[in-house]
């Protein structure tokens, strides 16, 4: 049992990390009252930006940075369309995904068939060699540790800081926030760009560490899963983290059970992560008053100072 347990647990971490980034980024965006359905598009542009720079320069640091920048650039388009031009957020988000998938294919044209050595593991002498705990907790690349730090920081910023309060204020009542003198659009733009950076990092993790190569459409719907996780998490970063690990965990466990010859239809097993997520979603949102409290009241509504 021990021989496969550690690899299986490591696989869960790898499978969950891109989802964590994309989902907690979107938590912040939606907290500020903006619904950006373009996560998939931002992710895949992040993936190709990171990969292209990584292959060209050979630097993992620059590659990761470029992934985030790629996501931010996409988010900027979305922010401009929805905040400045007051475009419909759902339509703009969908367009962002479609555009991202096509644009990344164009950018990636010269990078098909190239490979990247992957991200270096940050290992601590002695400690990383402790059986079980060492490989599980102390031998990951910087993005895996980064995803945990991001979750902790977001939870802190949203709940404990003044800026977090502002984000929640523009998300829950943008008119009130505006009337007491805060720039709704500036705060929202900051959140949108942050969400773009996180989606970009999620994509960068796919093309740099998960499967270090470039292929068109390699995000394979992970951006949509991240969006679902935000609702599942009732707009809480730490719950989005748990949700991502639940989803990743069940995906990996079903592959292992197949290998052990457990006789369950693989189509059913492929469906299982989605099913579990829906069931948990239903369970935690049973209390409708609680659910209403957690959803930002202005989610998806455009704001204009003249209204």
């Amino acid at each position, binding site marked *: 049992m021990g021989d496969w347990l550690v690899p299986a647990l490591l696989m869960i971490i790898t499978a969950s990390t891109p989802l964590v980034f994309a989902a907690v980024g979107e938590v912040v965006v939606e907290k500020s009252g903006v619904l950006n359905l373009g996560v998939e598009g931002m992710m895949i542009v992040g993936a190709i930006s990171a990969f292209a720079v990584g292959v060209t320069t050979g630097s993992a640091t620059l590659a990761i940075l470029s992934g985030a920048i790629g996501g931010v650039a996409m988010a900027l388009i979305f922010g401009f369309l929805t905040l400045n031009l007051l475009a419909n957020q759902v339509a703009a988000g969908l367009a962002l995904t479609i555009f991202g998938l096509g644009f990344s294919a164009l950018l990636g044209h010269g990078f098909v068939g190239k490979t990247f050595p992957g991200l270096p593991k940050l290992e601590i002498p002695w400690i990383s060699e402790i059986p079980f705990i060492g490989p599980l907790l102390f031998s990951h690349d910087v993005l895996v540790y980064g995803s945990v730090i991001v979750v902790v920081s977001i939870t802190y910023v949203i709940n404990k800081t003044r800026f977090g309060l502002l984000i929640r204020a523009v998300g829950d009542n943008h008119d009130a926030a505006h009337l007491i003198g805060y720039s709704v659009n500036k705060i929202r733009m900051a959140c949108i760009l942050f969400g773009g950076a996180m989606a970009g990092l999620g994509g960068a993790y796919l093309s740099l560490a998960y*499967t270090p*190569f470039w292929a*068109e459409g390699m995000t394979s719907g992970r951006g949509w899963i991240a969006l679902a996780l935000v609702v599942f998490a009732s707009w809480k970063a730490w719950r989005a983290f748990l949700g991502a690990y639940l989803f990743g965990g069940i995906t990996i466990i079903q*592959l292992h059970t197949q290998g052990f010859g457990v006789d369950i239809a*693989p189509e059913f097993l492929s469906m299982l992560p989605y099913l579990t997520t829906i069931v948990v979603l239903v369970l935690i949102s049973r209390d409708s008053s609680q659910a209403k409290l957690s959803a930002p009241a202005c989610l998806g509504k455009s704001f204009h100072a003249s209204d």
Partner: protein
Amino acid sequence: MISKKIILVALMSAVLAVSATSGQAADKKTKVGFVYVGPIGDFGWSHQHNVGRLAINNAFGDKIKTTYVESVPEGADAVRVITKLARSGHKLIFTTSFGYMNPTLKVAKRFPKVKFEHATGFKRSKNLATYSARFYEGRHVVGLIAGKMTKSNVIGYVASFPIPEVIRGINATFLAARSVNPKVRIKIIWVSTWFDPGKEADAAKALIAQGADIIMQHTDSPAPLQQAQKSKVWAVGQASNMVAFGPKAQLTSIMDDWNAYYIQRTKALLEGTWKSQNVWGGFKSGMVKMAPYNKAIPANVVAMAEKAKEGIFNGTVHPFAGPIKDQKGKIRVPAGQNADDGMLATMNFYVEGIDAKIPK
């Protein structure tokens, strides 16, 4: 699924854009059109068909003009794309995915003067031919190599969907591996997708964690091969030579090569000898090829693989030579006989010795 719809819309608009431009070039060259299910950059199935299209360009130069439309969804959109190609003066149209079968038939009826060729299907008419490749011949060769190269006696197989083509590949691999190594076992993980690099890599990882030291795949991305390289086990590439993704891991790759076929059919069109037919080509027709063998394979194993390949070429070796029993011990192919094409095309059982069940 929202995502699928969106991708569909995106593809439709892309498709319309491409086909609109292809309609404008009205010159005297004979036009040949291609419809691909994936992007030509998939490094697998569609990529190889596009290599075949380029081979036509090379062979005929100024006489032929080729166009292609990539990432065309199977179904109603395919009808639109194929019609557009037929209407814009293409004389020969290749549709290269199983799901284009009915759309191609429908359009072929409406354009009796245009010739159509559909890959991997079985519906034909006067102006609609079908063609496919016997990839299982390649699976036989890699099965032999795997049987000899495995130390753990476990072959890991990343599979897509339980359709006859995939099941045939698993059986061909296993029969060949068992024939040289009675201890060998095969572990199969279905990922229910043709293309999801992350999931394919995860399936390979799971197989390796469970003891497989050779990874085979019937999915389209190089992710399983790349994972094998990382985990220092062997692997076999799919559709094209994927050696760049696993220079140490790739034992060989089963490659699709449509070049000769596409050139031959275009030539027939130009000479007016084109006829509807059904071609299922293997090593002999050059449709299936093996990538160069890994240098780490001992000379005697390479010799054995080459001998099998030659035997299949000459017709003295058949990957499904009897006696073949299914998992219940029932004889499916009697001793002294080979499985016929009808049985191969509809294969829906695992052979005896495979310790798994076909998903129902």
